[in-house]
């Protein structure tokens, strides 16, 4: 990071810090969420019900059209050629054979690509979401092994693929840091995340550790991971006659993408339209990467619509994943197991241009009451593809380290691991000092332990054997913050028949559209069938990233704001002859397709009647919610208690997860069917993190060596046992609908629960993920 950029970030950080202090001290009544959402009280509606996902029939019948399935007239197909060195310069680039190959329309390299602006890097402005600011096919520099060096466009995919294989390059290589240890030996710099330093300190933690009655001190390592959504990254795009760039993409950030591509191509924002009605899995990976720009640039140069569907290897070369970490966790406790020292420090790797150090200490900030605390993330620089957000960035790997360490401390202190955690429950946020908006972790543990049969666990490892299998049980705490990002907005159009809600949000399988429909139905007093929820289109209101498990809160707050505006408008239209005449919006509720007085439901008039009397076929309102100051006023987090039972083969070391239970405290659950799938999905990705997932590099060249689903192992059906998920369903009084995010928490704590169960089974601590059988032999 340059000195100027560093100074700007520090200034922004200071300003944010000052604002946070002011918001923390403000009276509750000034803060969004001070008055509980009225829907929290209403338990008889559609919210919370196990409604089947609304797009289910389309998807199971193969009728949902994904981005690379849109066929445009005259469309050509693109394929990429990639660099094979980590760092250096292209000295010769031979495209003649590719250009002469049958069907080839265009070979685009840095020599003939349109001149493009660099991408605006994440958080540099409201809609900036790119992970780095590297130029895109603009010069002869190679910055990572796998960087695109040519785009071939041809009449068919087969022709494009073949021609791309004919592009050859000669390089002048430069020394590159491609191995973590080598990069670390060159020194590190302090990490920061969301404009705040990744460093927290209170008291003298090292001194407290040295003086502690019980202590553990160990290093945990986690490898690079890839998202591996089954849908490949791909888009179909065209430049229309009026100069509009239309992109059919798989995106978790349509508004950010339209704005960013407009900046890169030097267009007005409204001249880029991004639609993404179906996304075949995202997990943080379906953001902004070079392929979108390359396809749009190729379409411009070729003057034809272009489809670019990355092959699986191409996804590994272009789309970064979760960064490696090396974490030290040291815990000191008194004779009763109360933490006197909590140290969580370490290193993460990222390329110089990446804006995203893996923030593994974030979950630790609010985890435990400890006498003295030292949290710190140091960044080391490697020359490689930018890393990015992947499901629960920070929390997924941070909880692995800390929750394993807690298990180790429990053994040293001779205290049950659940009891040890309960003894160290904080009564307010240990770092910020803010009150919790809702924290029922102890209740989640109580429910989970009873259901799982925790009392059947022997605290001594290697004490249960069934045939040739050692059996063990482990638990861990999962956690993920409540986020609501600025930028939400929603439009509601009401007719006599129903309502349409428009918001530039995303459906990647989370069930967002279904839950949003249920909530909107209850809020508007309509049947869900009378609600149309439109999303996945950059021309709709709002800048709502499907990230940080914040979409539902953002949509919820946006619809609350639009609903309020709608009610105000209806009262105006209703006039003096209506039973609701003269009421303020807060004094009204919606029921049975109309409005009534909250304190007298009989004073009611239907929407149809109000609209008819006003001679209006429809009314449309659009509104923006207040800034998310609730996040600075309360400490807001989801929690979970995770339980694993594993079987380890005494002969081969093979590890099987035989049972898993997640007990969640995430506020109110909005759809019990789709929420259960979100929880299970996170847990299953956590099983992968624990036991098999690893992006492997050739340390000499920085090239990913397992860029395929055959060699990067995901959990398959036989790896997934019946997973039980339960929840407290205690509403958070300060969030829209009483809900906190559920998309990412499932992966948190899971790795540690499995690792702790493996230890309980065989008595061996594996602190280096993934826990493969060779590490147990």
């Amino acid at each position, binding site marked *: 990071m340059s000195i100027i950029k560093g100074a700007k970030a520090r200034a922004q950080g200071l300003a944010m810090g000052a604002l946070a202090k002011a918001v923390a001290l403000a009276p509750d009544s000034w803060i969004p969420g001070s008055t509980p959402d009225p829907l929290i009280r209403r338990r008889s509606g559609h919210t919370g019900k196990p409604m089947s*996902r609304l797009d289910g029939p389309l998807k199971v*019948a193969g009728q949902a059209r994904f981005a690379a399935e849109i066929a445009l007239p005259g469309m050509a197909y693109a394929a990429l050629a990639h660099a094979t060195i980590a760092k250096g310069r292209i000295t010769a680039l031979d495209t003649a054979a590719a250009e002469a190959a049958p069907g080839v329309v265009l070979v685009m390299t840095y020599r003939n690509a349109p001149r493009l602006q660099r991408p605006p890097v994440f958080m540099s402005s409201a809609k900036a979401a790119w992970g780095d600011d590297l130029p895109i096919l603009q010069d002869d520099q190679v910055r990572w092994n796998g960087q695109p060096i040519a785009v071939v466009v041809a009449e068919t995919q087969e022709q494009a693929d073949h021609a791309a294989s004919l592009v050859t390059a000669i390089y002048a290589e430069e020394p590159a840091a491609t191995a973590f240890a080598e990069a670390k030996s060159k020194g590190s710099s302090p990490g920061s995340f969301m404009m705040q330093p990744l460093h927290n300190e209170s008291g003298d933690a090292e001194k407290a550790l040295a003086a502690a009655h019980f202590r553990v001190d160990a290093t945990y390592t986690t490898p690079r991971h890839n998202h591996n959504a089954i849908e490949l990254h791909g888009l179909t795009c065209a430049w229309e006659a009026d100069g509009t760039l239309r992109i059919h993409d798989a995106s978790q950030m349509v508004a950010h993408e339209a704005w960013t591509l407009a900046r890169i191509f030097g267009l007005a924002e409204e001249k880029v339209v991004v639609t993404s009605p179906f996304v075949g899995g995202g997990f943080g990976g379906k953001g902004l990467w070079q392929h979108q720009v390359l396809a749009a640039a190729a379409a411009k140069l070729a003057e034809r619509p272009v489809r670019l569907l990355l092959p699986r290897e191409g996804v590994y070369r272009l789309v970064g994943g979760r960064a490696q970490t090396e974490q030290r966790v040291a815990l000191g406790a008194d004779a009763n197991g109360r933490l006197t020292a909590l140290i969580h420090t370490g290193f993460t790797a990222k390329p110089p241009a990446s804006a995203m150090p893996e923030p593994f200490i974030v979950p630790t900030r609010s985890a435990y009451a400890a006498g003295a605390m030292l949290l710190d993330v140091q960044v080391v620089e490697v020359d490689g593809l930018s890393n990015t957000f992947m499901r629960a960035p920070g929390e997924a790997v941070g909880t692995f380290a800390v929750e394993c360490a807690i298990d180790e401390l429990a053994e040293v202190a001779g205290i049950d691991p659940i009891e040890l955690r309960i003894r160290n429950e904080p009564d307010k946020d240990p770092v910020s000092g803010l009150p919790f908006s809702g924290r029922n972790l102890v209740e989640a543990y109580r429910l989970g332990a009873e259901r799982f049969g925790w009392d059947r666990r022997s605290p001594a490892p290697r004490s249960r054997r069934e045939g040739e299998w050692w059996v063990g049980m482990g638990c861990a705490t999962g956690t993920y913050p409540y986020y609501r990002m600025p930028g939400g907005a929603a439009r509601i159009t009401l007719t006599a028949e129903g309502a349409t809600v428009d918001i530039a949000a995303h459906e990647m399988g989370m069930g967002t559209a279904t839950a949003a429909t249920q909530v909107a139905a209850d809020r508007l007093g309509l049947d869900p069938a009378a609600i149309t929820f439109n999303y996945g289109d950059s021309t709709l209101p709002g800048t709502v990233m499907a990230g940080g498990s914040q979409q539902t809160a953002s949509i919820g707050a946006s619809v609350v704001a639009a609903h309020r505006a709608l009610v105000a408008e209806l009262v105006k239209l209703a006039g003096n002859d209506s039973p609701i005449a003269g009421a303020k919006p807060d004094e009204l509720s919606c029921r049975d397709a109309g409005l009534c007085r909250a304190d007298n439901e009989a004073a009611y008039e239907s929407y149809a009647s109000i609209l008819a009397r006003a001679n209006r076929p429809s009314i449309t309102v659009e509104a923006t919610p207040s800034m998310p100051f609730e996040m600075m006023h309360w400490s807001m987090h989801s929690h979970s208690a995770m339980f694993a039972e594993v079987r380890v083969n005494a002969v081969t070391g093979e590890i099987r997860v035989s049972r898993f239970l997640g007990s969640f405290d995430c506020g109110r659950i909005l759809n019990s069917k789709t929420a259960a799938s979100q929880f299970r999905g996170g847990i299953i990705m956590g099983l992968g993190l624990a036991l098999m997932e690893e992006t492997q590099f050739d340390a000499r060249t920085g090239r990913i060596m397992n860029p395929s689903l055959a060699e990067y192992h995901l959990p398959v059906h036989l790896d997934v046992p019946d997973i039980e998920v339960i929840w407290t369903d205690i509403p958070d009084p300060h969030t829209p609908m009483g809900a906190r995010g559920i998309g990412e928490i499932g992966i948190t704590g899971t790795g540690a629960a499995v690792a702790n169960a493996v230890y309980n089974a065989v008595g061996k601590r594996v602190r280096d993920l993934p826990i493969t059988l060779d590490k147990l032999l």
Partner: protein
Amino acid sequence: MALIVNGIEAPPPADPRVSLLDFLREHLHLTGTKVGCNQGACGACTVIVDGRRVLSCLTLAVQADGASVTTIEGLGTPTALHPLQAAFVEHDGLQCGYCTPGQICSAVAMVEELRRGVPSNVTADVAAQAIAATREELRERMSGNLCRCGAHNGIIAAIEDAFGLETAA
């Protein structure tokens, strides 16, 4: 010669390099068959050829010449779902929906394999005439179909429900 795709004749492509997967998606615009890896590792492209499940990405279209191909579109439609498609919706055996057509085509043919007595890696007695449809058998036999969203429990439940399989874990 021709391929019979969902009961309709389609002439094979002129370019012999075209995979059955690309033929279905790009030539016939039957995009219900998905592409997840193009190298036989994920199962998203599974279709049924003459009653057997095949990976259409590893099959050349010309290899299926004369064969009867059933894709997800041939099993049911959104308003007239195949019982397994309906069970996937009911049991939430999908999230993003991208691996789903492959899971469904695979399961339809897999159940026939079980009924024919084809053993798997977890079958205790490979000589047995009848193979019990245990949950472990279903999981083993569906393991070639990857799902990243983590809908595995719902998928197995949907298969059990749609085919009336009584399984024990």
